[in-house]
């Protein structure tokens, strides 16, 4: 009896859909043709141009500052929110749950608009700080949901055991809770980082002078720039950094194990 070929076909299709566009982007970053429709020869021109484009690097820096800041803060706040939601089951916590859950389903455009109106009405001047606040707002929900899922199959007898054996609150938290929840917190944080780094709609509304982020910059380049392939070059560099980071973290994980 021959086995079904369907899983193979699906796997290959998924790989093609995931990685072919990325491959084309990498190839086009070395393509002399601006439109990328045909191969006009190898060039490093876009990479050279990229290093001359101060605004792109500014935008890149803004994006990284906001994404890392929002990730750290939302990891802390999201985890504490998840704790509260898990430990207590009062009516107030059900309201809390709804409040944390809502940003996941509210359309971005509504959120961006309402945050903008809010910031303007309290007289906060728009810039990196308002983008940071907006990103923390939606990142908290994602972190909280991921950590909450982790908590739901958390074995609380471990905590009781540690307290039985004489560990104080501090030891229990840092040596039992934190390591066991770490995968949840980190994956929540990574999710938050990814969402923050490529958010366009909300950022667009709450950004001010000097706070253009990479997605906003790229979008305006699509419409009006003659140097679009520079973005291919930047994306290729980002891909290399990402792959190196993943590879490095896996090595570290292996060494520890």
């Amino acid at each position, binding site marked *: 009896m021959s086995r079904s070929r369907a899983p193979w076909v699906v796997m290959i299709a998924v790989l093609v859909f995931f990685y072919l566009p990325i491959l084309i982007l990498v190839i086009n970053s070395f393509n002399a043709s601006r439109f990328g429709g045909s191969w006009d020869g190898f060039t490093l021109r876009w990479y050279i141009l990229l290093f001359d484009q101060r605004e792109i690097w500014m935008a890149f820096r803004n994006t*990284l500052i906001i994404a*890392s800041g929002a990730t*750290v803060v939302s990891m802390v706040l999201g985890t504490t929110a998840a704790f509260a939601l898990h430990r207590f089951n009062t009516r107030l916590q059900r309201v809390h749950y709804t409040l944390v859950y809502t940003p996941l389903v509210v359309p971005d455009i509504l959120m961006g608009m309402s945050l903008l*109106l809010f910031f303007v009405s309290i007289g906060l001047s728009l*810039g990196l700080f308002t983008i940071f606040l907006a990103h923390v707002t939606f990142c908290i929900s994602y972190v909280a949901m991921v950590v909450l899922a982790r908590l739901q199959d958390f074995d609380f007898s471990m905590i009781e055991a540690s307290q039985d054996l004489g560990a104080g609150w501090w030891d229990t938290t840092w040596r039992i809770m934190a390591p066991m929840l770490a995968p949840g917190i980190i994956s929540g944080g990574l999710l938050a980082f990814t969402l923050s780094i490529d958010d366009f709609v909300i950022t667009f509304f709450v950004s001010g002078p000097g706070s253009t982020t990479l997605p906003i910059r790229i979008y*305006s380049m699509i419409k*009006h720039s*003659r140097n679009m392939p520079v973005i291919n070059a930047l994306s290729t560099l980002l891909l290399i950094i990402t792959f190196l980071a993943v590879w490095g973290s896996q090595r570290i994980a292996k060494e520890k194990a």
Partner: protein
Amino acid sequence: MKSLIRWTLIVVAAGLLTGCGERKPRLHLYTWADYFKPELIKEFEKKYKCRVVIDTFDSNEVMLARIQAGATGFDLITPSSYMVRTMHQLGMLQQIDPTRLANIYYVDPEYLAIALDPEMDHSVPYMLTNTGFAYRKSRLEDVEPSWGVFGREDIRGRATMLNDMRETLGAALKYLGYSLNSVDEGELAEARDVVIGWKRNLAKFENEQYKYGLDSGEFILVHGYNGDILQAMEENDDIAFVIPQEGTSISCDDFVIPVTARSTDLAYAFIDFFLEPANAARNTEYILFLAPNEGAYRLLSEDILNNPSIFMKPEIRKKSEVIDDVGEALALYTRMWDQVRAAD
């Protein structure tokens, strides 16, 4: 885990600190992407000991929405002329004080004659763009420099016109010898019938992809913006750009200073810096749009002067017009355009 958090914090702190290290005066410029020669920006910064912070928008409407919503702090913006008019009507713009612009006399008076703000009351022209048509030289022979080219039989199915009622009805109005800001129902009806005639030859009405289609050979004749077509020309030697002798539509991006600007002095200095003929010429050579600056024309290279997609001949420019707000006649345009779209 702990070290990871510590490192992240250090990186964030370092990023924030470098951000507010030195406190030079800043000029916040809100403009289109890649619209200034980077070297000139650096020279300006050196000369005035300041920092130019550039933010970019991708459409006039988006820019207006942001400013209206309360994004303050931009010192200088470069919207298109029709948007300048809207912003002026909304009271968002400062009046331009010509005594603070030593180089204002270089602005081309022939362009000002057709500009929407000819007195430079609240705006100073920065860069001109115009429409025209482009074709593949090897595929289309004996091309007359006239909008009538869209009536040729041999382009059938291989041509595009802009999906923009003002541009395309405007081209037909120019072809008929009328103003492209006409509000006369009879003239517009004639223009509609001309476009319906052209439409039989068109593959589609198209705004974004035509330059790729022209490069790949899918289209042999396109109606489009000079900047887009110039990109295609740099890719492909077989493409020629023509500005029809009947005239065409010109649009201009202007410098404006919003009332909420903080560094007004730097804004004036910046405008003046880019009005200086040498700088205007260098900027034009780099971004390949034409600065309407009389002093700069003499300094442009032959290549630029002979390239119709960058330098528009004065005699054609005289016949060309800036697309203006037509007020209530907009409904008339919309109706005519709907009839064009519905026609077979």
